[in-house]
């Protein structure tokens, strides 16, 4: 399993982007957008609850970031992910719909591409199909207690400690059940997405 990049790795990746974009490398700009666009748009959708606005804000975020990276000394941006998140949330927190939709001033194919191909691998699986997959997942769990762990976690929003106490299981067992269930559900989602002819990323 791929480990989450820690800050040191993120700093190394960021330094590489900063250096190459600063040198005018257009491919680096495309790579930057490709690496961060899905996560950034997901984040903005969560914050704005408006998919179109999220796309606009993401485009504007990349425009600002690339413009800065083309000009900034290396030490000004230590972690590109943090910088993009901060910029995106600043834009989202203001009333920026009009601002975000104005014409971009940076000539970059990478920024234009930010609006394309941003659907996650599971976005196209229908709600009804997701419910069928959840039903299948629950039916596959042999012990009622493990089904209760999922229901209490995702439906009743109970804390882990409360669930463990109520069901008489320890933290390690809870983690194991949740981890396996999520892994299995992801497999089911991936299969469903691929059967719909979608390319599954990640």
């Amino acid at each position, binding site marked *: *399993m*791929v*480990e*989450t*990049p820690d800050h040191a790795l*993120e700093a190394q*990746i960021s330094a590489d982007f900063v250096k190459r974009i600063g040198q005018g490398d257009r491919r680096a700009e495309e790579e930057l957008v490709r*690496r*961060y666009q*899905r*996560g*950034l748009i*997901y*984040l903005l959708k969560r914050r704005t609850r408006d998919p179109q606005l999220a796309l606009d804000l993401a485009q504007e975020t990349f425009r600002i970031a690339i413009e800065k990276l083309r000009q900034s000394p290396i030490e000004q941006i230590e972690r*590109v*992910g*943090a910088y*993009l*998140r901060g910029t995106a949330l600043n834009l989202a927190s203001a009333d920026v719909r009009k601002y975000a939709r104005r014409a971009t001033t940076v000539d970059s194919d990478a920024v234009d591409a930010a609006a394309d191909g941003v659907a*996650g*691998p*599971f*976005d196209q*699986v229908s*709600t009804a199909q*997701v*419910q069928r*997959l*959840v*039903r299948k997942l*629950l039916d596959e769990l*042999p*012990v*009622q*207690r*493990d*089904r*209760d762990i999922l*229901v*209490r*976690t*995702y*439906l009743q*929003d109970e804390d*882990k400690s409360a669930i463990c106490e109520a*069901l*008489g*299981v*320890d933290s390690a*067992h809870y*983690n194991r059940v*949740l*981890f396996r*269930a*999520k892994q299995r*559900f*992801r497999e089911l*989602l991936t299969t469903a997405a691929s059967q719909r002819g979608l390319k599954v*990323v*990640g």
Partner: protein
Amino acid sequence: MNRQYIRDNDVIERYLKGALTAEEEEDFEEAYVGDAELLDQLQAAERLREGIKGLDSAGNLERSRPRWRQTLASPRYAMAATVLLAVSLGFSSVLYNENQVLREGGSSTPLLTRFVSLESVRGGGNVTEISAPAQDELTVLMIDAGVVAHDTYRAAITRRDGEQSEQIWSRADLTPELNGMTIAITLQGRMLRPGTYEAKVDGRMNDSGRFEPVAEVRLVVLPRD
């Protein structure tokens, strides 16, 4: 924020319900913005959450233990059911013994059976005292198996005599009686000499691979009058 921290601290689930601290939220968002694998995990969990809520809204989700089952699993109900079982088994035992006596045509002493309900001492429960049974008397110890149903149980009874202890009975693969709520252990009278006894019951879920304590009860057998 690394993957281990995210898993151990339910970061994804807490993020989805908006329960992260501001610092955790910032760290987590910075992490997933540039990490497709982590973002996949997050989106899969989000869809799982949506799916469970959707099933529940559509009335297609069995909620954990309906209230009537909780009532059945309650210690109060277990005690009441134990009493009923004891009465019915006692009655059956009397009938059986009477039949036995009639069949044999003899006048030997009928076999007696005594039912003893024991409360767990975890949390400060009482110690149960009984008078020593006759040599051929059967004693059935009724131990509450707890609210959480396990797949299999084991139990052991140990006699305590000062600092010395002796295991007088043990058995694995026990099945609870009374709707899965009571472990019944039958002992011959000669096994329960006056003294102090401890009974421990452990339960195991099939997927956990290890036993965990379910009940620990104490019994003092007093000399016969």
